[in-house]
């Protein structure tokens, strides 16, 4: 749906050249929810704004649904923009218009006949659950309701792509959750591609299929969300992942070991599990099979979009040979094992 190649953007701010995007390449598939995460100033906002040309790229190409956006004439660009919805952190609703007329606005711009447009607005308000607020003005709505109007407005012209510019960053956690559910629902129902930017890894965790991490104007990591979560490759992604999933073990636990006795040894391991294996009683069956003692040091389970994901830190004690076999068994069941300490 989106094909970005070697995109660069240079600003001139008070006589200084500022590189906002540095040779960014990225592909977003049809129907997926793709997240771009980065700290403020990393360039994510510039990146998303290049896709509908709110910012003119300095170099590189952007194809949306096969159409090269950077080469369009003013008129063609306006038509293309009508098929790319966008929602904003500050909602950007017109205070001069009612909720109904705000949603009608893009249809007016596109020149949709009045009756047909009115019918569409009704449907859109129903979709976002604001039918009873149609005649209110934006100032009378809560933040979550305002963003729902924003979403209805963005969907009015039946876009093939929805751009979300920090759409939940001004909302409280509970409202954020409901807005994210709405986006997920829209994505499923209409098979609508969504590209969102955020600085909040929770947003990525809850709705995204794939994620790109942007740092200092460059994409430093991109892939399936589960992959990035279970195995972050760069310090930036690491810190984002740690912000939502605790992978670090409190230091004192690393030393507080049970004294091994006789010919048994102890190991401290971290078991990561993703998806179906999370539901199986693998640890208890390991204990029974290999006659081990297990001390659970730390554990954590979470969901990434709809997949369970978690990790357990275990201290296991037993005969060295049996320990090796136990680890092999867990690996054969699809778990990822990391040995943190041998003793």
């Amino acid at each position, binding site marked *: 749906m989106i094909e970005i190649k070697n995109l660069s953007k240079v600003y001139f701010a008070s006589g200084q050249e500022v590189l906002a995007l540095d040779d960014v390449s990225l592909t977003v598939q049809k129907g997926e929810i793709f997240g771009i995460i980065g700290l403020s100033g990393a360039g994510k906002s510039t990146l998303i704004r290049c896709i*509908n040309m*709110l910012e003119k790229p300095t170099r590189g190409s952007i194809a949306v649904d096969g159409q090269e956006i950077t080469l369009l004439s003013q008129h063609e*660009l*306006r*038509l*293309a*923009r*009508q098929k*790319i919805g*966008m929602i*904003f952190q*500050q909602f*950007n609703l*017109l*205070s*001069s*218009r009612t909720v109904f007329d705000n949603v009608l*606005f*893009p249809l*007016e*711009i*596109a020149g949709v006949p009045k009756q047909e447009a009115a019918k569409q607005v009704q449907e859109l308000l129903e979709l976002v659950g604001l039918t009873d607020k149609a005649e209110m*003005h934006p*100032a*009378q709505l809560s933040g979550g309701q305002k963003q729902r109007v924003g979403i209805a*407005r963005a969907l009015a*012209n039946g876009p093939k792509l929805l*751009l979300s510019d920090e759409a939940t960053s001004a909302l409280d956690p509970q409202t954020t959750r409901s807005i994210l559910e709405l986006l997920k629902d829209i994505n499923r129902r209409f098979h609508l591609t969504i590209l969102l930017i955020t600085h909040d890894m929770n947003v990525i965790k809850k709705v995204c299929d794939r994620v790109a991490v942007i740092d200092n104007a460059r994409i430093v990591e991109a892939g399936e969300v589960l992959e990035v979560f279970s195995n972050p490759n760069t310090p930036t992604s690491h810190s984002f992942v740690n912000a939502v999933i605790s992978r670090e073990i409190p230091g004192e636990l690393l030393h507080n070991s049970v004294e091994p006795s006789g010919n048994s040894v102890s190991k401290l391991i971290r078991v990561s599990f993703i998806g179906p294996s999370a539901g199986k009683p693998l640890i208890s069956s390991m204990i029974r099979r290999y006659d081990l003692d297990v001390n659970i040091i730390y554990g954590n389970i979470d969901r990434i979009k709809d997949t369970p994901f978690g990790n357990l830190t275990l201290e296991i004690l037993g005969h060295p040979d049996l320990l090796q076999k136990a680890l092999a068994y867990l690996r054969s069941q699809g778990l990822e094992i990391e040995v943190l300490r041998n003793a």
Partner: protein
Amino acid sequence: MLELLGDNSWMAGKVLLATWETIYMVLISTVLSYLAGLPLGIILVTTNENHILENKGLNQVLGSIVNAARSIPFIIFLILLIPFTRFLIGTSIGTVASIVPLTLAAIPFVARIVETSLKEIEQGLIEAAVSMGANARQIIGKVLLPEAMPSLLLGVAITAINLVGYSAMAGIVGGGGLGTLAYYYGYQRYEDTVMWITVIVLIILVQGMQMLGDNLAGKIVNKRR
């Protein structure tokens, strides 16, 4: 006010006529100055950097012309324009002739006041409209003007009030209205009563205009709340 007139009741007719002339001059020149000043103000805003019709050259040229016109004191402007007014109307004396300098002086003022109102609109709103594929005409008509409406109406009130003051100055050089009345009777004939009545009528006029502007703007703001 009639007691004030005492045995000078002959003045009532003159005051009424002069009041009407002032209202007439102010009204017409407000309307005419907005016909030119509103588009000018819109151009001044939209040709700014990063705005929808960015055009640095045009913006600077227009800005300088507006500034130059605004730096000429009205009384001088009035005299400078006499030949032009004569050419246009056939005379430089009377209510209709006064409308020419009043309008021309108000145009740059209106342009700036419209510009100030439109500048208050958040960039995000304009950007949202751009992202929907709106063209410049749609953004001006459906975003800038409606969003700034309360502020624009207050601007109209300020312009009209300014024109009341200007019209009095025009009155001194034969422009008609309350200014002429105050000058001929109040000043040259030492009729203090006329002077005071003129002042009172002017105060009422200005208060009324301001209240009307506040009211209309307030109504719109309340509806949007």
